[in-house]
């Protein structure tokens, strides 16, 4: 009885599928695409889900860039339009979003800062032949020999090295601990820190790991305190960074902290009090607000978006500006733009100093900062010679 119904409904099911695929198409997948007098700049980031908060500044940076580009007459007389597709903070969504944008033939694509998503998109980035930018830090991204991928970030090959070097040379610490999240970024930081410490003849006094969803950091902090750590390098994400700093203060700040970039975003700093930031240092790629090169730009950003300009927004701004410049200076084809970008070296931008080289790994700057609730104080700027 039931079986007949099943056999039969297979047909209706297929018709349903058909209709849905058509619907998906109609909602803008195959359709869309630029009008003749405009150029599309694609963007694939999380506007919903767990990563939406972290990637919102990127959208701001891109928007500001598009406004500036259009104010200068666009690219070869054509206005630029920013089209954003949502990754949904999830791998399949990221892959689909990229395909969707690529089918609209944008001049370039600003993709996600989540390295796993970009790795999942790698095949399409290769096939589509559209210059794609990522703010992701994982070293693996630029080891794939993909001529179309450009990293607009200082990779995790350098930033943790700077952090560890700072701890040893500037803070004079010998007992250094590591506290990191159990994902690709955390793994990368741990490896590089251990390598750097070894070069100075040191070993970490403790390496503590936490799950991305873990809320309580007390056990890890207590263990590091017991191990006698003088400074702890933290590689994590904003929610956990905040908990770490709050709980460390409850312990009366037994050690200094050097925290990874996402802790230094304005939306993270907002959640912290001055005494929770005592003895805290951070790494960022740039401090647009205080660097004289970018301070005017940062002021405009703050006025436009109501929040302080951070390095990630600035880096995506730079990406869009460099694409526009490449398009104006060449015939504007994807290949020409890519070649131009590969040729950029030592170029100072709002968010970094750019040298893309052969493998597209663009960032070469790390700034060690002292945070306070008002903002970041740049202590030292390191430009890596690559």
């Amino acid at each position, binding site marked *: 009885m039931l079986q007949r119904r099943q056999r039969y409904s297979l047909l209706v099911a297929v018709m349903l599928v058909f209709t849905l695929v058509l619907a998906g198409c109609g909602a803008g997948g195959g359709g869309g695409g630029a009008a003749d007098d405009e150029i599309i700049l694609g963007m694939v980031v999380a506007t919903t889900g767990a990563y939406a*908060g972290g990637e919102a500044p990127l959208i701001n940076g891109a928007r500001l860039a598009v406004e500036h580009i259009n104010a200068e007459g666009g690219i070869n007389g054509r206005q630029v339009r920013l089209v954003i597709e949502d990754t949904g903070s999830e791998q399949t969504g990221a892959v689909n979003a990229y395909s969707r944008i690529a089918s609209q033939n944008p001049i370039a694509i600003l993709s996600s800062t989540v390295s796993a998503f970009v790795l999942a998109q790698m095949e399409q980035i290769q096939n589509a032949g559209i210059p794609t930018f990522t703010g992701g830090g994982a070293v693996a991204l630029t080891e794939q020999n993909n001529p179309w991928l450009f990293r607009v970030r200082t990779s995790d090959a350098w930033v943790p090295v700077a952090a560890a070097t700072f701890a040893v040379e500037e803070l004079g610490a010998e007992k250094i601990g590591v506290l990191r999240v159990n994902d690709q970024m955390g793994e990368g930081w741990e490896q590089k820190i251990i390598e750097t410490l070894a070069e100075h003849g040191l070993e970490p006094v403790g390496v503590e790991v936490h799950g991305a969803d873990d*809320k309580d950091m*007390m056990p890890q902090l*207590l*263990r590091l305190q017991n191990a006698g750590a003088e400074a702890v390098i933290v590689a994590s994400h*904003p*929610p956990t960074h905040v908990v770490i700093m*709050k709980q460390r203060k409850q312990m009366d700040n037994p050690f200094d902290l050097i925290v990874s970039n996402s802790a230094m975003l304005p*939306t993270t700093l907002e*959640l912290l009090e001055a005494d929770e930031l005592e003895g805290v240092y951070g790494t960022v790629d740039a401090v647009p607000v205080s660097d004289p090169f970018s301070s005017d730009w940062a002021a405009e950003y703050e006025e436009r978006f109501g929040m302080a300009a951070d390095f990630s927004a600035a880096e995506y701004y730079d990406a869009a500006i460099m694409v526009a410049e490449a398009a104006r200076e060449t015939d504007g084809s994807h290949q020409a733009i890519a070649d131009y970008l590969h040729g950029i070296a030592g170029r100072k931008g709002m968010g970094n100093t750019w040298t893309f080289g052969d493998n597209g790994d663009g960032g070469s700057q790390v700034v060690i900062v002292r945070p306070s609730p008002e903002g970041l104080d740049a202590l030292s700027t390191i430009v890596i010679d690559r």
Partner: protein
Amino acid sequence: MFAQILVNGIAMGCIYALVTLGFVLVVRAAGVVNFAHGEMVMLGAYLGVSTTAALGLAPAVGLLVTILIMAGVGALFQRIIVQPLHGKHLLTIVMATVGISIAMQNGATLIWGPYPLTMAPFFGSRPVNLLGAVILPHTLIIIALTGLVLAALHLVLTRTGSGLMIQASAQDPETARLMGIRVQRMNTIVFATAAALAGMAGFLVAPLFIVTPSIGFSTMLKGLAVAILGGWGSLQGAILGGLLFGIIETLAAAYLSTAYKDVVAFAVLILMLLVRPQGLFPEKIGEKV
């Protein structure tokens, strides 16, 4: 260090107890496995942030307001989502609560934004020194309030008329109905109570950590584990299981490798299921087939 870890463990245990108690109440009284229960905790946390930060209410007032709102949410949930699906297959009801859970989680992002939020602890963030342990006053408040609430609940369930009616309709709805007890109203009260307990847990735990839309999901998983640990459907199992779980989790994290602590936790859970599936504190009630 041990005293500190123990006190923190007990506080986390209280939170788990509150969350799981609500979950198990619903399982027991209405036969529903509510996958959206974790989102009630999340909602309680967000309401905590809003009432104390945005509205500037005193924490005690904020807590009361949150509990009242959450009770309302629970009642609405029962009326709109659960009641219409009465009698349907278990998986259908589970799927409905899953759908609502997704909607609630993303709805929270729309209302409160995607950035993490914080809430000030009761009586400030300066820890006190108690028997060598450095403890936030807030932690002690959690333990005290939980004790009060559980005691009150126990009194209501065992000493008052309404409480006995709830127990009756939980154990045997058909007979209860024959005796004139309005079973559906009891169910609504049960859902409201469960949501209020969850919301209270969320409110209390928010100042210790960070409030994001995803805290509900991970709480749900732990609640499920505690319910199994304590004995499925057992109220005292939920409370004692929750306390035990909180203490063991905190101790394990402090003294074992933190990378593998989750693996250990799940392995222990599996062992528990294989060796003593009825849990640590099973109650003798008829299994709802």
